[in-house]
């Protein structure tokens, strides 16, 4: 076996373990769909009706069938919505990707640049204010800032819609549709960027400050290079690594991270899907979303490991 590919085998094994867990863990969840739906309702089922209902909903598949179903995109039917799970997930996924992906990228780029510039001006008033502000902002949870933004901009000022990803039944297309999407995106996006940016900013700044004192940066300055090149190509490049690691780890929590914000803004992403599915014990949906999140985590980890090797040549030796 080629040692270079060993990590790949490890990743495959991990994926298999995750499929197993996603199959087994929900079995430990107390109660099932029928209890959740009828437990608190006025309708009382007798034993025969309950058995019939269970029959209709279908029993649990074995693990092999479950695995085969995953590969063939047959992820079962949602119990509550009576729709194929794959369709539900594929409908929700683009919205989550749009919201979370944009938020993460914006927070990464803006936080990184702000961190680099702040470190370059260390000791200055602007830098001190930035660090103080970011530290405070980092302490505010998404749920707090999200609700505040919602109150201010949606209810009081009315500048942005309070929920949803598009205006319902508007049947827009083309440019107006895009504007409508962005309009709906603004508040949840802002909430997430505010949550992610301070961490990136502080991490970048701290890394940069260390690098600014290093001998190789003095060499770069001695070489008479343009200041921007010294700052970004020589210094920031080496501060990028921890920030990217953080970015990747955060990205892996994309689905669960979206849960709070998507719920507050009623954004039709995977978070909302998962949240409602948990409420109604809609097991196939929960399984699918959780498994997707786990696999995403693995994929991102793999990507990060490969990226690290490219970014810091010393890491190739350590792996």
């Amino acid at each position, binding site marked *: 076996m080629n040692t270079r590919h060993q990590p790949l085998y490890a990743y495959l094994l991990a994926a298999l373990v995750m499929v197993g867990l996603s199959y087994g863990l929900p079995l430990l969840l107390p109660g099932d769909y029928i209890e959740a739906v009828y437990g608190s309702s006025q309708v009382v089922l007798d034993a025969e009706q309950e058995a019939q209902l269970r029959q209709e909903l279908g029993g649990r598949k074995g693990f092999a069938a479950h695995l085969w179903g995953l590969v063939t995109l047959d992820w079962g039917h949602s119990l509550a919505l009576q729709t194929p799970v794959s369709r539900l997930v594929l409908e929700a996924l683009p919205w989550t990707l749009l919201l979370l992906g944009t938020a993460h990228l914006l927070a990464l780029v803006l936080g990184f640049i702000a961190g680099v510039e702040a470190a370059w001006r260390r000791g200055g008033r602007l830098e001190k204010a930035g660090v103080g502000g970011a530290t405070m902002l980092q302490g505010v949870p998404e749920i707090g800032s999200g609700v505040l933004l919602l109150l201010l901009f949606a209810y009081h000022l009315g500048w942005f819609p309070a929920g949803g990803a598009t205006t319902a039944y508007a049947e827009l297309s083309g440019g107006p549709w895009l504007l409508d999407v962005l309009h709906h995106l603004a508040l949840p996006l802002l909430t997430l960027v505010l949550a992610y940016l301070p961490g990136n900013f502080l991490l970048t700044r701290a890394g940069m400050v260390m690098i600014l004192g*290093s*001998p*190789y940066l*003095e*060499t*770069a*300055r*001695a*070489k*008479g*290079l*343009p*200041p921007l*090149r010294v700052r970004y190509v*020589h210094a920031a*490049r*080496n501060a990028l690594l921890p920030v990217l690691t953080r970015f990747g780890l955060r990205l892996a929590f994309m689905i669960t991270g979206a849960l709070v914000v998507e719920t507050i803004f009623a954004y039709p992403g995977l978070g909302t899907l998962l949240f409602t599915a948990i409420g109604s014990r809609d097991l196939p949906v929960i399984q699918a979303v959780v498994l997707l999140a786990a696999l995403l985590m693995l994929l991102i980890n793999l990507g990060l490991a490969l990226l690290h090797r490219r*970014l*810091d*040549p*010393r890491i190739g*030796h350590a792996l």
Partner: protein
Amino acid sequence: MKTEIKQLTVTYREDDHRLLALDRVDLQLLPGRITALVGESGSGKTTLGKALLGLLPPAATVDGQILLGEDDLTALDETARNQLRWRRAAVVPQNGAAALNPAYRLLDQVAEPLRRQRGVKRREAEERALAGLAELGLDRDQARRYPHELSGGQVQRGLLAMALILDPPLLILDEPTAALDCLSKNHLAQLFRRLAAQQKSLLLITHDLALARQTADQAAVIYLGRIMEYLPAGQLDRARHPYTVALYRSFPGMDAVRDLGGIRGDAFYRLLHAHPAVNVQQHRTCGHDHQHLVTPASNHPEEHAPPGADEDGHAPAAGCLFAPRCTQAEDACRREAPALNRLREPDAPQPDIDQGHEHQIRCRRGGIIDLLCCRKTSKSYGPVTALHPVDLELRAGEVCCLVGESGSGKTTLAMLAAGALEPDRGRVSFAGRDLADWRRRDPLGLAARIGIIHQQPAEAVSHRFTVFEIVAEPLRIQRPDLDAAALEQRVLTSLAEVRLATQPEFLRRYPHQLNLGAIQRLCLARALIQQPQLLVADEPTSALDPSVQAKVLKLLLELQIEKGLTLLLVTHDLGLARKIADRLAVMEAGRLVESGPAARVLSRPAHSCTARLIAAATTT
């Protein structure tokens, strides 16, 4: 391009004080010349290197001029300075691989100045960088490696190739060989010579004195930010400033065979405690500034200079900066700051003055003084000529061993030097005064300065004196004002130094109750108790066992470092001479046949008698 540093002063602002890193430094770096900048850590060497590139941190205040060709670096703004960097002056930084960006291949970093400063296309820049690296012995494969994949020597050559890529007229080498084996070091040294031959100016910042001596044309010795001595680098082993001499004596070069000395005390930071909110401009005009010398460790103020600035408006130094550590400092040295003067006497065997090298020294006393000077001194006992005319100089703080066969005149010369005998012809001077004349006018004063240990210890003590009386006698004569307690204290200290007992019973003993080794140490204690400047000792450890002998010799070396004790030691033990002598003088049949640095005399004896002695010593 000529590089000229004029009156360069650099201070670093710290919380409530300023640190004086460079103090009115003048230095010329001429094309084709390698100038070595040597000194202890913290003496300002690296600050000077950084100043030449305008790379001092924002906390630094720069005063004076740095002329790179026509342009004064201190007068330019950052953009203009950036234009000069690497084109006019490039640096091989210290720290080796840490000076290279870990994220880029060596080749890219070497080619970078070509691409960004000269706008050369990528492919061509890489070709030229590869050629430059190949010239220094790095092949294409090594060029494409990352810094962490290269060895220390490869990194050093890579850094050098990077510095040379724009063909700058000035090259600053900051400890370029610090982490290298001696083969790589020699290789680089030859390379530096070749670069100098291409009419580049090289500034070699180093504390490797051997490298400086072999490689450089001239050396500037810097202490606490001031140039103390400026001399042809080849003469570093014959330097005159007490600091340079002590520095050289501390250096474990292959030509040092004796035990290493070190310089007494510690270097201090120079902190300027200005009046509140006084910046350089203001203090230049109002001129109120205090300078403290502060140890790096304790921040303890060592000396307070009187307020008031010198004519340049700079903070005044409290006399000579090196005075607190100098073994020949006088009171005047602590008051007057010495200027950098041309050395008056033609000291070097081959003066290099025609080549523009000159020897300048910042010492009020003109450098290490000649403490003892014999000129054509001869002595006969009746018809027997014990000593033919001999010339011998002994510098202050030097250990000179007189070696030779029995009857070669060693003891006669030693006793002449001690003033115990008077020469028939010629003269002996001590500290610049005629010894015979001094002895007639002020025998007591002379006796306090020269200690003598005679060859036969048992004959040299009075058998009617107790141990205490023997050791105390010189002090009783010299210092009748000392009270009994102080006298006893001095005697006990002296006895302890030579590893003798200090119990009352021992003090009451008589010489016949002691063994020969103890009596010899008694003589040593007696000679040292008055803290002489010169100790003339005739076989002072012949009766001691090796362990006690080692301790006594260590004591003598320590006195040399701490008090500047000058030692004229007569011995026929070459092994002993080798461990403690700075200089060896070899005598044969009443003649001084050879004299020179101990290591040189021992490794390359010039006289057959010396060779015979060495051969005999190594076979037995």
